[in-house]
């Protein structure tokens, strides 16, 4: 191991680490590397693939995820984000962040439907699904957009008409 070089901070130009050491310390573990952004179309294909089937089966992707926390009651909000500066910054990333091929987009309806309650039609809370805040917001935006484009079907309140309003003149 190299000894610490004695340097005067006013005049010295020596660095503590050599360039090779710097680049080696900056190497990202490939399992935690999220610098490459996967397009939504690839995600849609992935969900239909055997690899997905083997990993998740027929269940939703968040079902087998468990949060790690102190005590019996989890914190009210999940973490802000799992990925910082293109690297997974936690040992237990949320269901979407842990699988780089799960991309929340308004066209990826199969994935979005997994986060919508089959009983009430609402988007499931992050306390149930375990998504980090950033991904949860992405999910809300994607679901909203999909409903706007008519890709997701939902129920609207029943509109009652007053026939007398439309029967006369106008």
């Amino acid at each position, binding site marked *: 191991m190299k000894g610490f070089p004695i340097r005067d901070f006013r005049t010295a130009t020596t660095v503590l680490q050599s360039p090779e050491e710097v680049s080696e310390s900056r190497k990202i573990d490939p399992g935690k590397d999220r610098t490459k952004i996967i397009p939504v179309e690839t995600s849609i294909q992935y969900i239909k693939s055997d690899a997905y089937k083997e990993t998740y089966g027929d269940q939703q992707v968040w079902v087998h995820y468990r949060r790690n926390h102190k005590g019996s009651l989890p914190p009210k909000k999940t973490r802000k984000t799992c990925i910082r500066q293109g690297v997974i910054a936690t040992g237990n990333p949320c269901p979407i962040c842990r699988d780089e091929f799960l991309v929340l987009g308004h066209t990826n309806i199969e994935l979005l439907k997994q986060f919508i309650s089959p009983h*009430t*039609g609402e988007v499931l809370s992050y306390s149930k699904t375990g998504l980090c805040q950033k991904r949860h917001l992405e999910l809300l935006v994607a679901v909203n957009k999909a409903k*706007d*484009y*008519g*890709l997701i079907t939902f129920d*609207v309140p029943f*509109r009652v008409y007053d026939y007398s309003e439309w029967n006369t003149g106008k």
Partner: protein
Amino acid sequence: MALNMARVWCRCSSYCIKKNNFPNVGVNFLHLSRSVAGYERDPAPLFFSPDVQRIMRKMTKVDVKKVFRSRKLGEKLDAPEYKFLTSEELEQYMKETEKKVEERLQVPPIVKEREEINEVLSVDRALTGYDSAKFVFTDITFGVPNKDRIIVVREPDGTLRKAFWNERFRMNQIYFPEPDRQLRTPHMFEEPYLTNVLDRGEYEFVLDRACVQYEPNDPEYYRVTSTTYDHIEKEQMFDALQSTRHFGALAFYLCWNKQIDNFVLYYIQNDRIEDAVMLIQLFHLLNPESKSAETDSKDALKFIQAYISKDSSRKSVLEIALQSFLELQKQRQFVEEGIKKAHGM
């Protein structure tokens, strides 16, 4: 001081309003032609007539499971309730259910499209250039119906005019929001997304959402509903809207536009002669000048035959279908008689 002869284009639903500056007269608004044709004559008097309402209601079969299907509206779910009832109490409940069914099957009104509002209240040239933006003044008094609300716009050149329909819609939605109605029209109602949804067969969804989003006299509402009904007619998915409130509207639209040939054919092929008769009766009510209007509807087959020979445009296909139905009926009768003889009756 000379006025600027600037041309201002403003978006108004699917129309473009062109503003012409006439120096001495004031501001005139030109209305360009519609992109989609609407109803030429007013359908409202016929739509609200008791005969038409009765036929539309009768044609809509009631499948209680579909009418009262659970709608996921984000409300808290309750466990199902089981009760023990006497036969009188059961009858009482059945009567109340029938009332609720009537409410659920209320057909959305079919009325003529509204005309664009073109009223100028005053022109105050002293206010020209006060601001580069328009001012919209909305009267938000509580208790005033949205359609009667006073909404006026002050243009940058000093014109005070009544707000256009799209401005009225926006203001009403901002101050008195309707649930699930969007400020900006959902992309779903525009092409190509509308065709995409219809190809998936989600007719009830499109029509329900259109009822919430638009008023019945909105030209956009007419465009969306007519596109949906035309798609159903083309794909022959006539039972998709059965037991919904939109079935009556579908039948009305097709009868009004004299496009019921596929519908009648579908009914004959599925042995639903009474339904075919009701459909042709509705056709006669909406088109009293049609050639077969005078036929008596007591003999169902003659009634349908009269329509086919005089008013339909797919005569050959319909006649073949009717012939095959008659033959099928004869064969069935023959088999029944054979069974009766075998049983010694």
